[in-house]
């Protein structure tokens, strides 16, 4: 990766509008708004580095969206399109880093969800969602399959209502993967489910981080329970999500262990909160974590060059997003298109914020639009002083709202370093495997 050259700004004097970088192919330019990527001949790159006025003005002459692109400096006017239901407030595992306190959120979620609360939320979503885009109903907790009766009832109800309304309804579930029985697997196969299984590495790593209350190996339970679904996913799509906690920051061994179970999509997330937790990464960890991420990514890029798919989903998603030119002033849909419904029926902007008053924006009878706009305005990346002047502002978008307090120069350098690697890799991979970025060949009904 070549030397970083930042262009001058137009709104915020410190906010770069473009950035030069290099790959094995030569020089490239990232135009920050709307994530436009160009190849640049060496002379033009040199002119930009020199600050040649005509070269710079050619770039800065047009930073506006083209038709069809959503301006980055406005509050989006989108309605709820996906929700998650906290169907359970209990869990059979006791992971040290769990943000949900095993589903109880430190007492904020004292009861399990009832059918009437779940149905009201689904009805509300289907009433207000756009018909031209799919809606997603997610199940979360606690461990959702400890309340499988409610989960199954919601799926059948929402699918039937969606069919009547001609609304494409999809589902997602985040599960520890230890409790799936044959009926659960049948349900997941029968509907368009995105199944995210929390699995942290090979057996010892996993069991160390995710102990079961009964003392048995939760890794063995995952293998037994999820294996049949991986072998025949039906309409579902199954991915692994691994949490990386101190002091074990190595990724390749974890990855290998998870891939051996049969997962083809494997993503990692480091522990960042709560601050001061012995499991959360500290400043000195981030360069190490970046090196681990890049080493694993290089393995997968080698596979991709050989014609295979990339299984490391942090990388695969970043590359696809760069290809699309994804750019957003928000890291997620919290409070915009996405809400998480607590067991008491409150609509929170985020599933990690159950019980936090500032995230409570309404209930199934309606949202408080004023609170919602204020919530979104406060979280727009332009509203955050260190983020608004970062070149990665529309790619990282400030990161998870719940983890904002853990942001540090070191952790942000990790994000920038990772994006740098992804930008370079994208340019190189598009040259050797352009087909990797082709759309899926056939739309499925």
């Amino acid at each position, binding site marked *: 990766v070549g030397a970083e050259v930042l262009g001058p700004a137009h709104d915020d004097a410190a906010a770069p509008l473009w950035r030069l970088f290099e790959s094995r192919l030569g020089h490239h330019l990232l*135009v920050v708004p*709307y994530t436009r990527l160009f190849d640049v001949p060496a002379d033009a790159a040199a002119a930009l580095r020199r600050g040649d006025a*005509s070269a710079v003005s050619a770039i800065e002459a047009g930073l506006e969206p083209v038709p*069809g692109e959503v301006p980055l400096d406005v509050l989006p006017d989108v309605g709820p399109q996906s929700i998650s239901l906290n169907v359970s407030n209990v869990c059979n595992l006791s992971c040290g880093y769990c943000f949900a306190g095993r589903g109880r959120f430190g007492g904020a979620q004292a009861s399990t969800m009832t059918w009437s609360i779940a149905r009201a939320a689904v009805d509300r979503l289907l009433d207000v969602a756009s018909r031209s885009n*799919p809606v997603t109903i997610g199940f979360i907790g606690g461990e959702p399959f400890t309340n499988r009766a409610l989960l199954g009832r919601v799926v059948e109800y929402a699918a039937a209502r969606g069919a009547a309304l001609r609304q494409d309804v999809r589902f997602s579930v985040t599960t520890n993967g230890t409790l799936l029985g044959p009926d659960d697997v049948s349900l997941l196969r029968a509907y368009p489910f995105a199944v995210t299984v929390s699995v942290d590495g090979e057996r010892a790593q996993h069991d160390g981080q995710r102990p079961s209350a009964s003392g048995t190996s939760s890794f063995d339970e995952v293998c037994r329970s999820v294996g049949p679904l991986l072998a025949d996913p*039906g309409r579902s799509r199954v991915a692994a999500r691994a949490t990386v906690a101190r002091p074990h920051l190595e990724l390749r061994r974890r990855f290998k262990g998870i891939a051996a179970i049969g997962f083809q999509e494997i993503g990692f997330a480091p522990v960042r909160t709560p601050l001061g937790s012995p499991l959360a990464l500290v400043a000195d960890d981030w360069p190490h974590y970046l090196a681990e991420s890049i080493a694993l990514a290089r393995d997968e890029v080698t596979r991709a060059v050989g014609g295979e798919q990339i299984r490391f989903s942090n990388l695969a998603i970043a590359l696809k997003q760069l290809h699309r030119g994804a750019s957003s002033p928000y890291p997620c849909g919290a409070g915009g298109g996405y809400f998480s419904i607590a067991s008491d029926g409150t609509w929170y902007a985020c599933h990690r914020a159950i019980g936090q008053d500032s995230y409570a924006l309404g209930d199934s009878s309606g949202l408080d639009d004023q609170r919602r706009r204020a919530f979104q305005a406060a979280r727009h990346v332009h509203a955050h002083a260190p983020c608004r002047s970062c070149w990665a502002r529309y790619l990282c978008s400030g990161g998870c709202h719940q983890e904002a307090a853990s942001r540090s120069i070191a952790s942000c350098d990790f994000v920038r370093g990772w994006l740098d690697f992804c930008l370079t890799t*994208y340019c190189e991979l598009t040259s050797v495997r352009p087909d990797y970025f082709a759309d899926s060949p056939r739309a499925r009904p």
Partner: protein
Amino acid sequence: MPAPTNELKLLPRNATAVRQTMLVTGNPVSTRLEAGVGNCFPGLECDLRNLERRFFPFLTVDVLDDQDVVVVSVDLAGAQSAGLSPALVGAYETIAADQTTRGVLWHIDSITSSFPPFPQPTIRLRDLGAGTDRPSDAWTALRLIPENADITLVLVRSPGRRSGGPARVQLSGRRLPYLDANGALAAMFEPGELTQSLCSPWTHDFRDCGCFYWASNHPDIALPAASLSVPAELDVPTPWERAARGAGAIPPSATSDGPPNVEMDHYEINRRWQELDFVVEGRERATPYAEAEVAGRPLADDAQLELHLQYAAGVELAVIHLYLAALFSLQARAGAPASVSSDVAVAEAELRRITFGEMRHLRAVNDVIRGLHRTTRFIPALRVASHLPPIGGKLPRAVRPDRLTREVLQTFIDIEQPSVSVDGLYARILATLPALGPRAHLHERIRSIMADGADHFRTFRFIQEWLAPHEPAQYLRTLNPGPPTKADGAAFQIYSKIGTTYLTMLRALRDAYAVGLPAGAPEINAARVGMLEELEPLCLRLVAAGFLVRFETTDPDFASIDPPSDP
């Protein structure tokens, strides 16, 4: 600030970069599928019937005729992995089993779904065309089924063919959407699928087809290739399929009175189709296409650019006034020969088409100005120019509506002439907007306005040719230039009403242009409806009352704009 450069070479790599910088050179914007004009001149961009080929999950069908739709392929792997009921998968398997059996076809017998506005839930294809209470034909029936609607198909094997298995199956599924979630044509359509049934030059129907049933780069008439080096007076549209080709052959004129039988006959087109030239920007290309350089002195800075764009919008508005005044002055005199009526009718139609083009330009120029304003709101440019750009070193010409006299028609030709007047104004704007980089789409927008100008120039020359044999008194109304005063009674009232209606339209356009499309679509639509349903009848009444059509307002927001001084 220095003038923007277009020397910075940027090659787009990802989707958003391509979106901003790349339009395929030579193709007008109208050749994008979403802007295509379907089964009309200038030709098909695709055969719209093919959009229905994948209306039903896991099937590809062909519409053979008004009552017959056959299965051409089955995506059996897709059906088997979609979690369908065993009975449904079995039905797909039955059809798929016959796909390799020569001569066996599965036909759709009946469709149960909804076909708004027709009430019947079930139609049998063989009954189509028999009454007004059902779709007229199979293609229409498929097209009427709303996206995502439930469909039950009954399919039957070709009569008389036995290859084992049931001869009749039933399938249920949802009507598939045409577009994906991003609004692009769904990925299920394969390259070439939408154009596969268009006429091809090596087929007889290409020679015979009277409805321009071929792709838009194969028009009926075109300007001869520059490499033929024809004299300027012969550089006029010629039949594209002419038999006499190559160096030394003088391309015959393609006017309505042109010589007969100049085109290749059926046998010849089969044999010589490869001699037909590609046509880009209305001209045959015998050599690889290279975009023509437009000579224009760049403007000094963005402020000058915006001033010139505001004036350009004013010029568009001014020529709309001039062309409409001229349009409504046309009327074949009672008792005039039939040739007068037909020539006036076609002149009217072309003048109207040109005027609508200028209206689109007005919006395009405003889009470009809005594109210059990255974050700030802009005030749309809707002030009519007081003067038109100068022609040939003369002073700018004051805007004065008039009838379509021979002199006025000549000024219209002068106004639209390439490289001078309006075209010269746009050439400077174009030279200021870089062809590559983030402003490339603004550059393209201006280029397409200029391409239209060249078409308007040619068309006005045709109008001149059509009207030349006739005495102006035979096709022009006698009109008082006006404006009417109170003493003119009813005419004054109509004139006043035109003024208020026109002002309402300008305000609607101002609101629309401020936000652009699609947000401004309702206001643009309101202005369009107001123009066609209110303003046009008023204009006809005003000329019937003996006065020239004028659009005038005293609202200071729409006061006239003077040409900018030469920077």
